[in-house]
């Protein structure tokens, strides 16, 4: 008797949910697959918040081409397989016009085949250079590449006359990719990489690897490539072992959360990052200053959290997409794609973009500034950037 009642209740609930779905709305759908949870959460969470804030803002101002935008977001938790599943869902079920997403290199690379096959424009928010090299027709990205990060770090090292470095990398896709790029770029930049160590992204102690680096002869600086909690633990271990050389991090840790987790150990750590982090400290004649300051103020006011460059990537991705749609005058996927490729001199939170058929990123080294962490805050290292 009770069993029948339970079955009836479940069926009733199911029916109600199906009916409540309602008629399909006539809004334009933009998809996003982000890693709002999991090891990449401090990249994906600000990205999600940024997209939510600015889609709402665009709709409040009347939408694009007279149509309102609807953001469809899926959380892949940092898992490449989940990302691929969501990508397929966005293309086949939600039938989105374009996607801004792919928080990590791993999830982006898993999703690229889906979007290339379905011919849907995809603006990735991940770091590795392999996303846009070789150039794929439908894939773009907004963050600086790991190769540029290496070049910026090596330029700073050269300026400080430090030419022999040790590399310590996370074994995640981004850490490995940037390590490979640094090894590739080093000879041209006049840098010798003497030792290479690595660690698992979930490890809680890197002192064995750092001990080997400390014992190696001739090292003048150490570069850590990776993101998530790994670099924070590496930084703490670095100070614990009293390693005297300068420590450089990658742009994968360009977020206040890293500074908080690493604590006082982060003092003196240098990293390449977008001007966004030091928006108010930029010189007044810097072309990026107005946009960077405006985005920073809006993000911090609406979320109560400090600004992060990863949110900036998402902002730039969304704006490049919507500007392209405005120029195309429609939401036809092919036309939007063509206009994205024609983005010229677009001033974003992360840099000034000039895309072309051979360059689907559009940034040069001037979009990276060298920052140093002092007393828990970012400072601009002079004589760097445009």
């Amino acid at each position, binding site marked *: 008797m009770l069993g029948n009642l339970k079955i009836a209740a479940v069926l009733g609930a199911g029916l109600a949910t199906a009916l409540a779905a309602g008629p399909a709305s006539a809004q334009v759908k933009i998809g996003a697959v982000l890693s709002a949870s999991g090891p990449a959460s401090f990249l994906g969470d600000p990205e999600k918040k940024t997209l939510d804030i600015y889609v709402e803002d665009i709709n409040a101002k009347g939408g694009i081409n007279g149509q309102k935008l609807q953001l469809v977001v899926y959380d892949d938790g940092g898992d490449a397989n989940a990302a691929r599943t969501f990508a397929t869902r966005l293309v086949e079920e939600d039938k989105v016009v374009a996607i801004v997403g792919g928080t990590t290199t791993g999830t982006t690379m898993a999703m690229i085949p889906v979007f290339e096959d379905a011919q849907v424009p995809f603006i990735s928010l991940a770091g590795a250079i392999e996303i846009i090299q070789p150039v794929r027709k439908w894939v773009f990205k907004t963050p600086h590449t790991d190769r540029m990060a290496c070049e910026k770090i090596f330029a700073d090292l050269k300026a400080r006359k430090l030419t022999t470095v040790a590399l310590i990398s996370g074994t995640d896709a981004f850490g490995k990719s940037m390590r490979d790029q640094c090894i590739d770029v080093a000879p041209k930049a006049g840098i010798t990489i003497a030792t290479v160590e690595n660690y698992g992204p979930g490890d809680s102690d890197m002192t064995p690897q750092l001990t080997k680096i400390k014992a190696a002869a001739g090292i003048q600086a150490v570069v850590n490539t990776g993101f998530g909690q790994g670099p*924070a633990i590496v930084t703490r271990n670095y100070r614990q072992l009293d390693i005297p050389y300068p420590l450089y991090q990658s742009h994968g840790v360009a977020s206040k959360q890293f500074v908080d987790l690493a604590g006082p150990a982060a003092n003196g750590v240098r990293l390449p990052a977008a001007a966004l982090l030091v928006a108010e400290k930029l010189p007044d004649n810097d072309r990026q200053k107005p946009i960077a300051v405006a985005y920073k103020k809006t993000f911090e006011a609406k979320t109560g959290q400090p600004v992060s460059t990863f949110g900036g990537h998402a902002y730039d991705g969304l704006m490049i997409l919507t500007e392209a749609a405005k120029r195309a005058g429609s939401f036809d996927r092919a036309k939007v794609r063509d206009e994205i490729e024609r983005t010229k001199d677009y001033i974003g939170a992360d840099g000034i973009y000039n895309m072309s058929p051979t360059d689907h990123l559009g940034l040069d080294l001037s979009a990276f500034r060298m920052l140093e962490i002092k007393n828990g805050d970012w400072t601009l290292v002079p004589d760097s950037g445009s």
Partner: protein
Amino acid sequence: MAEFLQFLFSGLTVGAIYALVAIGFTLIYNASDVVNFAQGEFVMLGGMTTVFLGYAGVPLPFAAVAAVAVATAVGLALYRFAIETAREANAVTLIIITIGASIFLRGAAEIVFDKRFHSLPQLFGSDPIRIGGATILPQSVVVLAGALIIMVSLWAFIDRTLFGRAVIATSANRVAARLVGIDTRIIVGACFALSAAIGAIAGVLITPITLTSYNAGTLLALKGFAAVMLGGIGSAVGAVVGGILLGLFEAFAAGYVSASYKDAVAFLVILVVLFAMPQGLFGKATIERV
């Protein structure tokens, strides 16, 4: 020499963490032959609850005590709603139930807390202790001391108190235990609660070193379980020794072989030990009279 010492200290740091997590498996196994795979989540709950209560303005010592209380309550709830309702099932089914519980707790933590990483301040400051050219964090010593204290307390509890005897009796033969007047439900329930408390204490102590997040429990439970298999399941001493040994294997493998293969080397050594002594270093060989 300084390098060897540093690898040793690294191994002790990581090993103490594994040991503290591994001890949590002991009680529940002793009471019910169940390996509680939700033990990692108790550790995570201890750390995360303390962090979030701290954000809410509660002074950290009180937050830690409250976190242990919360974890104990969760342990009791796990027993009452998941284990006791399946009481006639065999141990394998109950183990799978704990795996389900761990997934549930992880999902709940994701919603109640958040998805980011968090840390706690180290108890005695972050200035490392320097010995012979190598350094060790004071917090690592705290974790080691915590593991040893809990190990001794647990051993004394199981071996020297009536309640402890009742725990052994319950796992040896449940019906016989009931026949001599032991309320097995209370025994097993109390063991779940105690294990949860131990896990939470572990969480509070290790978070300053390992950082914590809603899914920190998974990897910890896996390593803790490996440590327990090495040391002999059901033995508190075995759990601690197994944990420390596992940490040492990993650190020396990372230092002298290659960091990429440290996990492989560690597990290889465990396999070798288990081939020679299948019940682990301190485990009792199960003898079945036919």
